[in-house]
C-alpha cells in the first residue's frame, strides 16, 4: 500500500490531480481515532496496475470541517455519509442519518 500524507486543505486538490475514473477505482474513505486527532484516509486501487492500493491520509481535529471529494469522485457520497454517522466528523455537504438514525446521538467508532 502506498501512503500519501497531506495537509487537510490540500486533499481535494491532490486527489483531483491523481484520480482518473478510467484508471483508478475509488474504494472507500476510512477514519481512525488517534485520540488527539482524527486521521481520515481515502483509498484507491488502480485498474492499470492491479494490486496497487494508494491511501491519501490527512489529520483533522474532531470538530473541523472535512472537505468533500465528491466534486472529483462523485460516488464518494456514500462513504462520506457513513463516516459522518459512525465517526461523528463533519464532512462538507454530507448529512447525518444514512447508516444510523438521524436523531442518533454519539459516534460509535470514536474512542471517547
Amino acid at each position, binding site marked *: *500500500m502506498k501512503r500519501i500524507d497531506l495537509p487537510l486543505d490540500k486533499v481535494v486538490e491532490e486527489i483531483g490531480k491523481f484520480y482518473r*475514473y*478510467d484508471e483508478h*477505482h*475509488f*474504494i*472507500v474513505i*476510512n477514519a*481512525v*481515532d488517534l485520540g488527539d486527532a482524527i486521521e481520515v*484516509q481515502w*483509498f484507491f*486501487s488502480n*485498474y492499470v496496475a*492491479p*494490486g496497487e*492500493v494508494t*491511501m491519501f491520509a490527512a489529520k483533522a481535529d474532531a470538530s473541523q470541517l472535512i472537505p468533500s471529494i465528491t466534486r472529483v*469522485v*462523485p*460516488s464518494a*457520497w*456514500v*462513504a462520506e455519509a*457513513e463516516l459522518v*454517522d*459512525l465517526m461523528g466528523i463533519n464532512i462538507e455537504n454530507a448529512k447525518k*442519518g*444514512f*447508516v*444510523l*438514525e438521524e436523531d442518533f446521538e454519539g459516534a*460509535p*467508532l470514536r474512542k471517547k
Partner: protein
Amino acid sequence: MATYYDIPVGAQHISLLEPLHFKLTTENEKIVDVEANVGYVHRGIEKACTTKFKFRQVSFVIGRICGLCSISHTTAYSQVAEKLLNLEIPLRAKYLRILVLELDRIHSHMLCLSHVAENSGFEALFMRTMKDREISMELLEAVCGNRVQYDYSIVGGVARDLRPEVAQMILTRLKELRPKIDDLIDIFQNNWSLSLKNKGIGAISFEDAMRLNAVGPLARAAGVPVDVRNDTEDLLPWKQVGFEMVLENGGDVHARNMVRLRELLVSMKIIENVIQGLPEGPIVAETKALPEGEAVVRLEAPRGELFHYAKGNKTQYLERLKVKAPTFSNIPAFVEMFKGNEYASAPAIIASYDPCLSCTAR
C-alpha cells in the same frame, strides 16, 4: 405538466429481502429519481472487534457480519491480520480457502438468480434454482461443518483439512450440478417471458459503471473488467487454479444474470482444479507475534470487492478495523440503474443488484 409521485419501497417490502428503503420518485409509472436509506441494521461489529475481542477471536466475530458470504469476511480479515503479523500461510491452506470461497460464490450467485426469477414473476424457476443450489449448501456443510457461518478461515490458515472422501464427494456432486447449470443458462438466456422482464431493464452503461466505481457482477455485466481475483495473486493463487474473468456488455438485469451463471462454471472449474492440484502439507502457520502497523486487503466476494483495513498496536486488541462491503460500493450505481425504468421493473432490478445490508451496515 408532469405529475410526480413518491413511492416508498421498504424497509419491509414483498420484493425486498433486505432491510433497506428506497424513495422512488415517479412521473406516472416511470422512475425519475431515487433516494436510498441503508441505516436499519448497524450492529457495531467494527467497534466490538477492537474493544471486546482479541485479534485471533475477531475472525470468528467478523464472519457474523453476513451469513451469505461469511467466508469472504473471515478470509479477508485473516489475510489482513496475517499481513500485520508478517505471516506466510501454507499453500494447502490457500488452496482450501479458494475451495470454500468458490463453493460460497456458487450458492450466493444461485440465491441471487433465484430471487431475480421470483421478482420477475417466474416462481417455478425460483424454486428450481433454489433446489439446485442445495448441492452447494450440502458441499459447504461437508467441508466446513456448517451450511452458513463456516468459521473456516482463521488467522494463519484454515480450521479444517479436506478429507479424501469429501474431496471425492465434491467432484461427484459438481458433475451432477453441471447439467443443471447448463439448463439454467438456457432458460435465463432464452425464455421469452423472462426476457421481457430482464432484457434492457435496469441497465447501466460502461461509462456510468466506471464513473460510479461499480464492483462485482454489476460492473462486469456492463463490461468493466474489475474482479479482485485478477489482482491478488500474491494472497491466493487464483491464476494457478484457472481463474478467468467473465464479462458481458449489456449492463442490464439479463447481463447480470449471465455474468453470474457463467461465473458458476468458472467456480466449478476452479474447485475441480483445487482438488486435483491440492498440495500436501500443514493447514495452519503458527506465530506468537502481535499485530503491528497498518494493512489493507481486497477480496472478491460474491457481490464484488470486499475491503478490510486493520491497524495494530502490538497488543492483543486491534486499534482499528474497517470493513467495506461490495453492496456499499454499488449504491451510487444502483441508484442510477433505476432511473428511466418502469416502476413495475423495480423488483427485478433490486434482486439483480443482489444487495446485502447486513454486510453494508455491519
